[in-house]
């Protein structure tokens, strides 16, 4: 029986407007009668209709730093969601055992890091693109994910190497003519600053090496569900406590991201005028502190939830993998390729 029998307890009825019992007058006020209500102060009973005639509408393209940071955070999280969807597709790499993928990736990155031959690096890079295609990863999306990091992590640091100041060699482009006896402090500079062929090749090799390594790592993350990546780290003897911690961190990042979004939207909905930068910064600092306190409180409760279900500190992880023939083929292929790259890099095999 539902609790509808309150119906039968339906007691007092019906008071017309104007009756001065406190309860009913309160009720009438909420319905829109704006006179003589003792609960609502006078200023709250005023209603403004429409914007003031002096209002101007300005359209600004520039976002505040808080808004920009939060937008970027959510773009990142949305990309993570997209990644999860890619990991569920039926493609080449998705069909492989995650342990094979993790071990193969580490091996390949090691071999690529030792390789100096730009042709071999180009071949391996093209192989990663083919793997991406066969794993149903959109090539445009894949290239964007990889190359967005390359200028940051390798391009900028390789810029000096291009010049004859650091890599002497055949001039490719003349940048500046300094004349004889040019100095930068105690350092002597060449009379003509040029970008050299040798320097360009070193920079290109380095960038391609980084791009190939990043491509392998991105492929692993795109084609493997996050929990399986963490669990497969156990096969590399990573301690259980780190695996569990990483797994839980990943899970709760999303929860706290939602909390942060809530803070921001709540503030936005009540922001009548824009605040000075210092006030915005104070607000961000305050919310960071609050999020930390909330995270600590939640961590205690999560620990209680774990204890309640029998957790005693001994971490148990269920991983039931089944190795197929294709996993052996993939493992042997990557292993052979990596050995070949290492042998070539050590001049033990000539090509």
């Amino acid at each position: 029986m539902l609790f509808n029998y309150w119906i039968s307890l339906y007691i007092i009825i019906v008071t017309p407007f104007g009756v001065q019992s406190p309860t009913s007058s309160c009720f009438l006020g909420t319905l829109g009668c704006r006179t003589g209500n003792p609960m609502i102060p006078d200023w709250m009973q005023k209603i403004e209709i429409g914007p003031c005639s002096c209002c101007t509408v300005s359209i600004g393209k520039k976002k505040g730093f808080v808004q920009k940071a939060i937008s970027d955070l959510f773009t990142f999280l949305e990309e993570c969601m997209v990644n999860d969807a890619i990991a569920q597709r039926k493609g080449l790499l998705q069909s492989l055992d995650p342990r094979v993928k993790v071990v193969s990736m580490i091996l390949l990155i090691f071999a690529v890091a030792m390789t100096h031959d730009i042709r071999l690096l180009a071949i391996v890079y093209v192989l990663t693109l083919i793997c991406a295609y066969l794993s149903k990863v959109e090539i445009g999306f894949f290239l964007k994910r990889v190359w967005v990091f390359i200028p940051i992590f390798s391009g900028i640091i390789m810029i000096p190497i291009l010049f004859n100041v650091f890599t002497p060699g055949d001039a490719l482009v003349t940048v500046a003519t300094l004349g004889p006896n040019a100095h930068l402090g105690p350092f002597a500079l060449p009379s003509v600053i040029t970008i050299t062929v040798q320097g360009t090749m070193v920079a290109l090799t380095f960038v391609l090496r980084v791009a190939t390594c990043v491509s392998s790592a991105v492929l692993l993350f795109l084609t493997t569900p996050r929990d399986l990546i963490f669990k497969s780290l156990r096969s590399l003897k990573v301690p259980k406590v780190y695996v569990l911690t990483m797994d839980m961190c990943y899970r709760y990042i999303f929860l706290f991201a939602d909390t942060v979004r809530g803070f921001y939207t709540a503030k936005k909905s009540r922001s009548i005028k824009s605040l000075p930068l210092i006030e915005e910064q104070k607000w961000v600092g305050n919310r960071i502190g609050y999020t930390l306190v909330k995270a600590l409180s939640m961590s205690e409760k999560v620990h209680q939830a774990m204890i309640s279900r029998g957790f005693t500190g001994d971490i148990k992880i269920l991983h039931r993998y089944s190795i197929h023939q294709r996993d052996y083929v993939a493992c042997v292929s990557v292993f052979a390729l990596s050995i070949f790259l290492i042998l070539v890099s050590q001049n033990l095999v000539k090509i």
Partner: protein
Amino acid sequence: METIFDLRDVSYTYIKRFDALKNVTLSFKAGEQTAILGANGSGKSTLLSILNALTYPTSGEFSAFGMPIKEEIFDTLEDNEYARFFRKKVGFLFQNPDIQLFSSTVFDEIAFGPLQLDLPPDEVQKRTEEVIAMLEIENLRTRAPHMLSGGEKKKVCIASILSTNPDVLLLDEPTGGLDPRSQIWLIEVLQDLAKAGKTIITATHDLDIVEQISTRAIVVGEDHTIHVDCDCASVLGNLDLLMAANLIHRHMHRHGKLLHEHLHAHSQEHDHEHGSSVVE
């Protein structure tokens, strides 16, 4: 019936200042279905937390399954057979599903309990699959908790408890945030579990579900003491008691030109008849 939980003059105070429970003396028997009713902040969740040996009374005595419950038994690094027995025996559904769902996929979440029981991997797999099938959540098995709706999270929380097959279920606001269909689903699950002989203790202020899932009702007042402990029908029929405990309130509202007032529970939508008077 065997007494499973026994509280004698139990009190709990947060940070030595704020009372959460005062002088509570209660006992729960195996196979009983009990509702703990109280307004927000009355101490229902604290009481459940004490019953699950997650929080310990600041004064008074609490024993479970004939053994006194002490912090030294549970919060120790040493493996403790009684603590393992207790955790196996008692399942706790937390009010906030995000606290309870700490694994990265639904499957892992449900497998967590059986793994803690040291069951062989095949048995863990089988149990997890069976609970997933029982609660009809096959479509969620590979999903991450942050990708579930409120109702789905609640289902997974319940599945994660049932996979260890506890005999005692402690439920903290189980219908909170659920849509009507999910509420009915949950009530039916709890009724089936009650028929199977499980002890179910539910903390709630949703009076709509009380009679459907329990036979006994305990009212915790806003003064953090136990006001009444008797059968559901008597508690729900005692309007003064429910008003005093802030579980119902006098409510006035209007339908078109009709203005009327009736008692109202702190829950969902409600049906009621309308008086004949007309607002002019």
